[in-house]
Structure formats: C-alpha cells, structure tokens
C-alpha cells in the first residue's frame, strides 16, 4: 500500500467510531491507520472535512489530537494458495499465526500477513509462452490441499500474451508468469488482492438446478437447496441454528466450504477447529478441514470487524468459485452482522429505520445474498462455478416479524424455520415442516427424479400432504378427542408420527444418523409410506388398526435410519417383511 503524505487528526472518539479531519482526498471505504497505535479503520462517512471511521479494534486510550493516516486502498483481502484450512478474524488476520506471535489473546495492534509469505507452492503451468490469455484463463495449477487444486487465474481486467511462464516452487509474492499486455509487461504473482465490498466478476449468471446434498433428511427431501442458491435459517436461541450450520458445513457436497462465525460463541469456533481435522468428507475420505476456510469474529471481538467479516468470507468464497468450484458459505449469524451495522449507524447519528436498524439494512442484506449464484466463470474454457449462501438469523425472542428476518426473506429462496416447540420436544433438526419452504423444489424434483428414483417427487408430496393433514386432525382431536376419529384418520396420524420420528428426526451426534445419502433418504420414506398404504388397504379389508400398530416390524422401521449406508438394500428387504406382516393381518378371506 502506498502511504500518502496526508495526515489527519482525530477530533472525536465514541466507541468504535472515530471522527478525524485533515484527511484531504481520502475516499469512502478507504482504510486508514488510527492513533499512535496505528489501529486499522475504514472511512464510512465524509462530511466536508470530517471523516467518520469505523475502527476494527478497541479504541480505549485513543483521543483527539492523535494522528490518522490514509493507506490509499479500500479494505482488501489476500487471495492465493494457503487460504484453505486457515482461520481468520473478520479482517482476515490469521488467528493461528497471531496466536504463535502474540499469545492466547487477540491483543490490539496485532498484525500478520493473511497468507504465509514464506511458504513455497509447486506451480505446474497449463499454458505456455506465447499463448494469448484473457481474464479468468487458468495459467497453471497448485495442489493446495489433497482435495482442492488451486487454479491460478489471469486476474480480472488483464489481457495479453504470456511472455514467460515456468514450472517450479514459488512463494506467493514471486511472479510465476509475465503477461505482455497493452500497457506493458506485467508480472503475475500467486497472491492477488481484492476489495471485499466489490463482487468478483463472472462471465454470465445461470439459473441454479443441481441440488446441494446436505445429508440432512428434512432439508434434502422436503426443503432442498441447490448449488448457487440462498437459504436462511432463523430461529430463537436453543433451537439448533448452529448445529444445522455445522451439519451443512460438514456434509454439504460442495467442493469448498467457507464458514463465517460472525458475532457468535468462541467455543463454537473451537469446536469446528477440533472436529474438522478429524472428520472425514464422505466423498473424498479426506479430513474436512482440507476443504474449509474459517472466518471467526466471535461476539466479543470488535464490532466493526464483525461488520466486515461476512464480506471477507464471501470474497474468498467467490475467488474459489471463479476457479470453477461449487462453494458454499455459511454465515452464523447474519443478525449479529446487522446489529453491527445498527451500532455503527447509531454512532453516526443516522436516522433509524425499524427497531433502530439503519434504513439501508434491506439493501445491504440483498447485496450480500445476491453475490450467491451459479455462473459461467471468466475464462475461455467456459467452466461453471457456484456459490451457495446459507445465513442463520437470530431474531429477538424468536419473533419472525423483526426487520432482519423480513428483509432476508425477501431475497432468499429457501426458508428453514426453526421452531422452539420442536426443540423443546428434542425433535432435531427443529425445522418446522409447516412453515418452511423451498422455491427450488421443482428443479430438485427433476434432478432427483432422474438420478435417484422417478417417484422422488411423488414421495415428497405425499409426505408433505400427510404432515399437513396431521396438523388439521390434531386441531380436531384437541376439540373432540381421539375417539371421534375414523380408523383411517388414526392411521394417518400414526403415519405422520412415523414420518416425524423415524424420518425427519435426525441425530447429528450419531455416527450413522448424522449423514444420509439421497438413495437412503428415498428408501426410508418409501418404506414408511409403503407401510401406510399397506395398512390402509388392510383396514379397508377389515383388519384391526390396533393390531397393525402392535406389529413388531414397526420397531424395525423406526430403526431404519440407523442402517449403515453400505447396507441400504436391507431396507428393501425390510419393506417386503413389513408388507407381508401387514397383509398377514387381513381377515383370511381377503389375503392376496
């Protein structure tokens, strides 16, 4: 960063907000160094000669008269090999290296380069000297981790002929190639910088169609999300938002996960740090950490850095999307991010919108979620990448009418509403099947109809219909009692209960139950619905409902979700046994 001569002076300090004057031609969103300690801050308002700065660290001990100097650049992140398996704070300081250099606490003024400058990476060229290249073209590759091949791309805006390129071991600041552009020869290093508030460009955006398989039955079967889609998970505390987010980070079949812990608990990030190196990705068999980038700005870390953390995360996610990967970003929680905006807005004495949130809350949220999508990346090979965004929302008191939930719902396509009541009954994931929705259902039905089973959509619709009917019948039972129901209705209630307990309920801490493949999901649901159909037929033929419900095979059905993935065929045999058992109860004349 080129230091300019302009040197300002602090006139006001109020928490994370500092006002300075004398900063000359410093621009909006430019980074500045504040006070004698040189704390990083960002210009967020300019009124005449008064520059309002949000400071990314505690401002105790800073006062009027102390210096402020501009850096000449907006808030940028380092992009290049070495991001994966790292953990950063909200402004991309590497927490592992900060610990090594500064100890167990994040002290003020601590600084270290985001990407290790000394580490050498083996670069293998994919293009040769004299090739004509344009933005997005892949010049060569680096094995960043055993599962992610880092593709070195021509940065946006560059075009020209390769003047030199060579295989070898490079540190991130050493040029791996020289491109002869219209403006002269430009060396290309592995390390590039990108301003976090500017979306990285793509060639063209596409409608997302392919499901993002999460292994969570209620999500994949009832309320699916697609690669490049957006979802939100609102819920009161204790309803399991973070467990849902962690489950997605573990099992979603994206190539790369960016997990942003934004204003949440320190121990939760520690849990990720402990678990992810140990857990194996079900597809590659390699540790999950090899496909994960972590951003942790816990609730007690400075609030301005929390505001920046989601942008830091999504910029890194876009960088890997540009390589042609499917990337999923989890932000936990966007409410804390919105609150950080509210806090800064309040200190700027802006006119508040709803509940003190700034009037631009909705547009900020929309511009964040809109960075998700499936797209054709820049580059002549026309590769596709996708970026899915899943944001947790923490509404006060679980009240979904509050501004952050409402503004989020206007832009996301999938709503997984967590329910306090279900959590109280220990039904996890506590996703309410009546209020949640997914606008990707049709796209996923088509894909799964081809790839899993052609009855996929039918299964899903029937399960939903049973659950809806259950809610109606329960109203009725509350008024007139169970005895007033017909045997068919009571059977439906039992079927709904089986769907809830034996299918939707899923234990994140059980080694088998934590992940269910789509074929197994389909089989379990088909088994339950099959049981319902056979029983329905048996009742029509004169069998007693209570006898059907007492069948020991029902216990086996309830344990179907514990059948290991390798033995899913066992479920088909179980279905046959269940059918035989139910039919066996028909009065003898009716047996087929």
């Amino acid at each position, binding site marked *: 960063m080129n230091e300019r001569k302009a040197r300002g002076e602090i006139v006001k300090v*109020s928490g994370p907000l500092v*006002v300075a004057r004398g900063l000359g031609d410093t621009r909006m969103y430019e980074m500045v160094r504040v006070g004698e300690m040189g704390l990083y801050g960002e210009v967020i308002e300019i009124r005449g000669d008064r520059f309002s700065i949000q400071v990314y660290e505690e401002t105790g001990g*800073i*006062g009027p008269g102390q210096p402020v100097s501009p850096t000449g650049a907006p808030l940028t992140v380092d992009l290049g090999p070495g991001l994966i398996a790292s953990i950063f704070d909200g402004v991309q300081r590497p927490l592992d290296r900060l610990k090594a250099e500064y100890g*167990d606490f994040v002290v003020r003024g601590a600084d270290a380069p985001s990407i290790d400058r000394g580490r050498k990476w083996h670069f293998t060229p994919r293009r040769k000297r004299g090739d004509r290249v344009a933005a997005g073209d892949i010049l060569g590759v680096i094995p960043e981790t055993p599962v992610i091949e880092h593709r070195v791309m021509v940065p946006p805006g560059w075009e020209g002929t390769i003047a030199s390129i060579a295989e070898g071991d490079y540190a991130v600041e050493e040029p791996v190639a020289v491109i002869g552009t219209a403006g002269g020869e430009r060396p290309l290093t592995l390390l590039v910088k990108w301003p976090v508030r500017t979306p990285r460009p793509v060639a063209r955006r596409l409608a997302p169609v392919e499901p993002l398989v999460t292994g969570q039955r209620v999500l994949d079967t009832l309320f699916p999300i697609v690669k490049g889609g957006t979802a939100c998970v609102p819920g009161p505390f204790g309803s399991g938002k973070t467990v849902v987010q962690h489950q997605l980070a573990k099992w979603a079949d994206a190539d790369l996960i960016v997990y942003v812990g934004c204003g949440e608990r320190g121990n939760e990030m520690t849990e990720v740090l402990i678990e992810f190196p140990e857990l194996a990705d079900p597809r590659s068999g390699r540790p999950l950490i090899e496909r994960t980038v972590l951003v942790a700005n816990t609730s007690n870390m400075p609030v301005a850095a929390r505001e920046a953390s989601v942008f830091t995360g999504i910029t890194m996610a876009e960088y890997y999307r540009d390589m042609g990967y499917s990337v999923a970003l989890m932000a936990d929680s966007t409410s804390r991010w919105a609150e950080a905006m509210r*806090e800064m807005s309040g200190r700027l004495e802006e006119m508040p919108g709803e*509940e003190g949130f700034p009037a631009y809350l909705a547009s900020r949220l929309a511009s964040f979620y809109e960075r998700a999508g499936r797209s054709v990346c820049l580059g002549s090979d026309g590769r596709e990448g996708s970026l899915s965004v899943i944001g947790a929302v923490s509404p006060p008191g679980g009240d979904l009418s509050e501004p952050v939930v409402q503004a989020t719902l206007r832009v996301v396509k999938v709503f997984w509403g967590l329910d306090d009541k279900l959590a109280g*009954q220990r039904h996890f994931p506590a996703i309410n099947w009546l209020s949640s929705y997914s606008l990707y259902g049709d796209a996923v039905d088509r894909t799964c109809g081809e790839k899993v089973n052609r009855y996929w959509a039918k299964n899903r619709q029937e399960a939903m219909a049973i659950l809806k009917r259950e809610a109606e019948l329960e109203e009725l039972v*509350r008024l007139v009692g169970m005895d007033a129901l017909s045997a068919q209705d009571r059977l439906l209630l039992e079927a709904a209960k089986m769907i809830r307990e034996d299918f939707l309920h899923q234990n994140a801490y059980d080694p088998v139950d934590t992940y269910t493949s789509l074929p197994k999901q389909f089989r379990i649901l088909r088994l339950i619905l099959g049981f319902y159909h056979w029983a329905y037929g048996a009742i029509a033929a004169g069998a007693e409902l209570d006898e059907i419900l007492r069948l020991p095979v029902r216990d086996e059905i309830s*344990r179907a979700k514990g059948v290991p993935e390798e033995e899913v065929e066992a479920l088909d045999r179980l279905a046959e046994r269940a059918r035989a058992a139910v039919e066996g109860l028909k009065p003898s004349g009716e047996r087929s």
Partner: protein
Amino acid sequence: MRKEYLTVENIVGPLMLVEDVRGVAYAEIAEILMPDGSVRHGQVLEVHEDKALVQVFEGTSGLTPGAARVKFLGKGLQIGLSPDIVGRMFDGFGRTIDGGPPVIPERYADVNGVPINPEARDYPTEFIQTGISTIDVLNTLVRGQKLPIFSAAGLPHPRLAAQIARQARVLKTGEQFAVVFAAMGITFEESDFFMREFEKTGALERAVLFINLANDPPIERIAVPKLALTAAEYLAYELGMHILVILTDMTNYCEALREISAARKEVPSRRGYPGYLYTDLSMIYERAGRIKGRGGSITQMPILSMPEDDKTHPIPDLTGYITEGQILLSRPLFNEGIYPPVDVLPSLSRLKDRGTGEGKTREDHAGVMNQLYAAYARGRSAKEIAVVLGESALSETDRLYVQFSGRFEREFIAQGEGENREIAAALDLGWRLLGMLPKGELKRIKEAYIEKYYPGA
C-alpha cells in the same frame, strides 16, 4: 502532576460534560474531587474535540458545575491483582470493603479484558457434577461453560446457585477451586444469604467477592462483572485455579447500561435497551472458557431475573444467544412445592454432548437424557389434552405418559436442598421411571442399553 479541570459544564443523569480538556483519551478514568474533599471516579464515554463526556460511577448527586475538580488519570479502569485477593471482598470499584488491609497488587490489569483467540481455546469437555439431577443428567454443565439461570422475582435462584457452588465437583481431585462472586444491585438479604452459605461450607476463604448492593450507586454496577472476570482470569490462567463465577443479577446490570444510554440520548432498540446490549453482554459472557496449555478454567453461572417471567425479554433473549444454554426456573413447578423448580423442557446445555458418555459419566447417558425429555414432553402435552377433554379422551399409552410425567416431577426434578445426587444414582432413577413405559416406546435409546439397564432386564 496531572492537570485539574474546573470546567464541568453539564450534568445529566449519571453523566457530566467536561470542557476545554486536552489530551484526554476514550475510556480513560477520571478522578472527581468534590468540594467536601471526597473523591469520585468516572470514565470517559466519548471525547469530541475539547469536550469529554464522563460517566460518574458513584453518581452525580451533589455535583455542581464549576465546583468539582476533574483529573484524568491517563489509563483505563484497572484492578490490582495478587494471590491475596482470594478470600477478600471488594466494592464495585475494586476497593476492599471487608475492613481488612488493602491488597498489595503484584500487577494491574485492564478490566475490559482481551478476547481469547478462538485458536487458543480448549473445548470444554470436563463434566462437573452438581449433584442436581436436572442439571447433571439433562443439562450437563462442563468446565469452561457459561450456563445462566433464568429466574424471576420470588423464585429460589439464590438457593439453587448456592447449592451448585457448594456441591459442584469434578470427578478428579486435588485441584484448586475457587468461587468469584459478583453481586450487582441485589438486596442486602440476598447478598447476606450467599455470605452465610459460603461461610457455612468454608467456601468464603476461597472466594473473591465483588459487592454492589441495591442501594449502592447503579453506575458502579457497570464495572462489577468486569472486575470480577479480570480477577477470575488472573486466578484461572495465571495461577491455574478452576473458577466458578456467579454473576447476580444481570438484569440490574443491563438496567444500569440502559440508564447511561438514555442519558446519552442514544437511539434505543427493544424496550429502550441500547443497540449494543448484545455486544456488551458478550464481552462479559465470552470471558468464560479454557485455554490450551493453561491449567485453570472459568465456568460462569450468571443469574438474571426475567421481567414478567418473559423469556423473550431482551435481557434473557440476548443472554440465551450468547451463553451455552440456560437453566430456566418455573413458577408453576415452584408453586407445586417442587425444589429446584427447573423447567426441564426449555432448559438446555449446549455442551452436554461433549461432557457426557462413556468415560465421563456413563455410556447410556445421552439416550436416557433424550428419552426422559421426550417422555416428559409427551406426558405434559397429554396432560393438557386431559385438562380439556378429561382423562378418558387419552389413549392407554398417553395415560401412562401422564403418570410418568407426574412421577418425574415429584421424584426426579424434586430433590432436597442438601441432597447431592451422584450421576450414576440419578441415571438409575431415570431408568426406574422409564421402566413405567413399555420397551417399544424407548426409541431414543440404543437397544443394547435397553437390554442392560431396563428395570427387570
């Protein structure tokens, strides 16, 4: 010699504005010399050019513009630390109030603390046995956790907190254990109750007390949890002690915060509390934890009273979003004479899964816990139906569940104030109650454990 200012301009609530100051920094501590020779303390909340906005800890009553002399000390709020703080009592500004000699500090520490690097945190996994079954079996507490008690006026949270402080132990011995107790705006009687409890069990010699009573200046409450946690961090991370921090009552703390916010005319969010209440609370609660390679730990048990028993009030709500679970007390249970009246269904410990199971408690713990929950929830909802439609409207199984939930409340939730139930005994009790239900109903427990533990099996 530091400059003294005679330029106090405005006094609003707990705040005063000092003009024509130079070289004053944000968060700096000020000394205010009153005309009668007494000294008060304040902290800079905002500096704007030559004006400093100061919050006065002891309150502004008796202050006159022009008469008070203000001196800025060039440092933030600090506390003097040494191993001798154990067994001592301090006020809301960190001065000893037990009549003993002042503590001679080895060093001073800024009370605001510094966030622990998530990379340095050690995940809490060590089971703490409190001897209270609703906590041990259903909402397991582990070392380094922050688990608040959500209570309300008239409920026995002091008795419960004292019982936990008395009985809590880790299934290992020979470790140094201490209690840091921070009282914010509680009554003398309540504080006295804790004193006597600590004294009775000999805990007072290994406790550090920070006391701000209901009639002490409210603004002093702002500093109390920070002082207490700075002391706790010193004892835990430097002296390797295991610390249980009890903060009571957080509602009073938040109200003091609101008072300052209102005096500053800030834009309020819910119910007049400042928009930064979440951030402020997290700076307190997140100071619980463990650090890799350091012996000690800080376990926090904040107590707060919910206005109108309302869990969605901003204070319990934001607390629940930061802490790792909550123990909720229930008035209906208390009215039925059940102690401790822990409302099992909405209570939660988020760290229970790592602190339970084989080698920590017992292999069947998770299953028993989930099954007890599910059965109790079903019994309760069946009971509600029975209230409307009469017992006859219930199926046979549902009637069993209603019986189960009644016995569960009377035998499992309820226990004596002096009763220290071991974890194994509590799990066995759980099995005896689950024995009321047919085996086929126990869907949350692995078959192998049902074979092993089901009564009569």
